[in-house]
């Protein structure tokens, strides 16, 4: 489990507090108004934004100052999740070997992951030749081979149409189910929350609130969440 202890994140005038615990194998949605700091929260979890105060623990280990790739997590960004000059196979392989020197066994792992996202025939293709949905699936195949206990998603499907986005959410759900990972996903859409999330982290007013069960929260939102959902 990931534990945030009296965490304070500051960026210029922006301040956000967080104090909660994320459990393995659960799926969390992060929702809140624009500019409330949803992406910043994920950046802090992942090590891109330094903590101004407080500590962060994975199991018993203090990871407050660990480098992004030394943390037990991986992240999909809003864009630039793939290197356009590398093949699909290489892009996924980077999840195992950051120097691209794959052993035969690692290569097989990558090919398995590609077949699980239905991209077996695209191993040698460059991302630029793929559709938006296929590109998202390549990134998800990399998440599969990385097999980190925590997967962070910063609206990676925002540019996709509704049908494709739902399809991707299902692939995500299968992916984290296969690796047993916890998932934290930033989203704008209440229907995404209902589709995939077990719990909701509501970010608003300089605070990332502790996770609450999704269904109950969405059915009976507190006043500030009601104001956001409209």
């Amino acid at each position, binding site marked *: 489990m990931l534990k945030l202890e009296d965490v304070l994140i500051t960026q210029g005038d922006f301040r956000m507090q967080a104090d909660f615990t994320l459990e393995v194998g659960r799926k969390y949605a992060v929702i809140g108004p624009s500019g409330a700091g949803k*992406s910043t929260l994920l950046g802090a979890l992942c090590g891109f934004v330094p903590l101004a105060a407080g500590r962060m623990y994975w199991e018993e280990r203090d990871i407050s100052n660990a480098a*992004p*790739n030394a943390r037990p997590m*991986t992240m999909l*960004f809003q864009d*630039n999740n793939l290197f356009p000059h590398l093949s699909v196979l290489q892009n996924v392989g*980077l999840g195992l070997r950051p*120097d691209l020197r794959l052993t035969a066994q690692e290569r097989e792992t990558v090919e398995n992951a590609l077949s699980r996202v239905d991209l077996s025939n695209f191993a040698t293709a*460059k991302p630029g030749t793929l559709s938006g949905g296929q590109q998202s699936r390549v990134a998800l195949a990399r998440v599969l081979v990385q097999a980190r206990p925590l997967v962070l998603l910063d609206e990676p499907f925002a540019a996709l149409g509704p049908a494709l986005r739902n399809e991707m959410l299902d692939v995500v759900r299968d992916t984290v189910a296969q690796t047993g990972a916890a998932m934290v996903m930033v989203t*704008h859409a209440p229907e995404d929350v209902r589709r995939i999330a077990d719990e909701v982290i509501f970010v608003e007013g300089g605070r990332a609130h502790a996770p609450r069960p999704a269904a109950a929260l969405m059915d009976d939102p507190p006043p500030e969440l009601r104001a956001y959902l409209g």
Partner: protein
Amino acid sequence: MAQGAVAIDRTAINSKTGISAALFVLALILLALGAVISRAEVGAGLGPSDWAAVRFTVLQAACSAVVSVFLAIPVARALARRRFIGRAALVTLLGAPFILPVIVAVLGLLAVFGRSGWLNAALEAVGLPTVSIYGFHGVVLAHVFFNMPLATRLLLQGWQTVPSERLRLVAQLRLTPRAIFRAVELPMLAQVVPGALALVFVICLTSFAVALTLGGGPRATTIELAIYQAFRFDFDLGRAAVLSVVQLVLAGSMALIALWLVPVVRVGGGLDRVMPRWDARSGLQLVMDGCVIALAALFLLVPLAAVIWRGLLGLPQMPAEVYAAAGTSISIAVTSILVLLVLALPMAGWIAGRKGGAVETIGLLGLSASPLMIGTGWFIVINPIADPFDFTLLVTILVNAMMALPFALRILVPPMRDAVAQYERLSAILGISGWRLWRVVLLPRLRAQIGFAAGLTGALSMGDLGVIALFADPEQATLPLQMVRLMGAYRMDAAAGAALVLLALSLGIFWICDKGGRWRAEA
């Protein structure tokens, strides 16, 4: 919602290598400068001929700048508002003088404007007095040949910044061409012209090869040429040192002033875009633009055609030394490319990781420090320890790389910034750092620009006539130096053949690097 850019605490690119490279360049320049200052006999001051050199340098640079830029205005204007077959080729041709060896162009100009050139032959045929290309106006002519195209490209950029809404507006108002010029084009020119003037002025201040071949004598000697003469003919290191200091102060201060004025030179494409224009459709304007474009194209193409024509005739006359010199030039050019990349890539990475652009100044120092000043400085440094002539090739290679550094940084830094901005977080999360970051991300992302920078460096080194003229002993020569020797011995046919070989090598190395960088590159 993106919450602006998420601040990144750790910079992906290790800045140590970049800082070391920058310090190395700085040390090379400062070492030369220190040596020169230590030998300069301040009490001796400048003699009358030195003052003449200073006056000539400033005067010819000012004149070259004014003529180049004011000739460029109608050319850029015509190119900006006309669409015709071959326009893209002509715009590309405007970039060619940059990679054209100076000495080759001089030979082309001599073939057209020289004593027995085509122009004088025509003048004689109709009974008019002939003209001489040597001296002040010859130097200016050669500088205009090189810098008018550069100025045209700069001004063309200016024209393309004019919003098309404004052109639509003037079309609706049915303004006369003169009114359009005053309302739209003059304000734009007022912004762009000072920068173009400053850039050409600075470039012409450190002119050496042109002055060596077309100038000379007490009335047409640049400071750079005076350094060479003091060094080479009189072996007066003290005087060469004084002149080097003068050159550095003059060119350095002007380069600093120019930094404020010079617009960002877009070296890549992008000038092919034709803006829709609704004005200037009348017959007179059309004829004028056509004439301007034709004259500009002839001014560039005829000397080049002369080089090729004379060169083909001269190829059989070439002595064996030409081939040896060509071999030396090729190896110098290739090594210069390698040295440049080793210096420029880490520096670009370091600069891209920082917010301000202050570091780019170090690269620009190379522009204000003249090759001959650095050569003189290192000669003074090496002389007590070893025979400086043993270091000719090493010094030439280092100076070539340093001269190309400002351009390389301008080419490499912007895409490096983009690559870092786009892929820094993805690389961090995947644990791609250090050398792996270069191998997996940065080098492949920047392939096209690396190829372009390498090509420019190769072409510049291939055609360079600077330090090598200072250092070379009779057995050693690069191809440009060999050409000068052949011309000095009045073996013009052999020199023309060598010019053609040099032209092919310069364009060839540029083409190979540039194409190699873009070959099968994915967007």
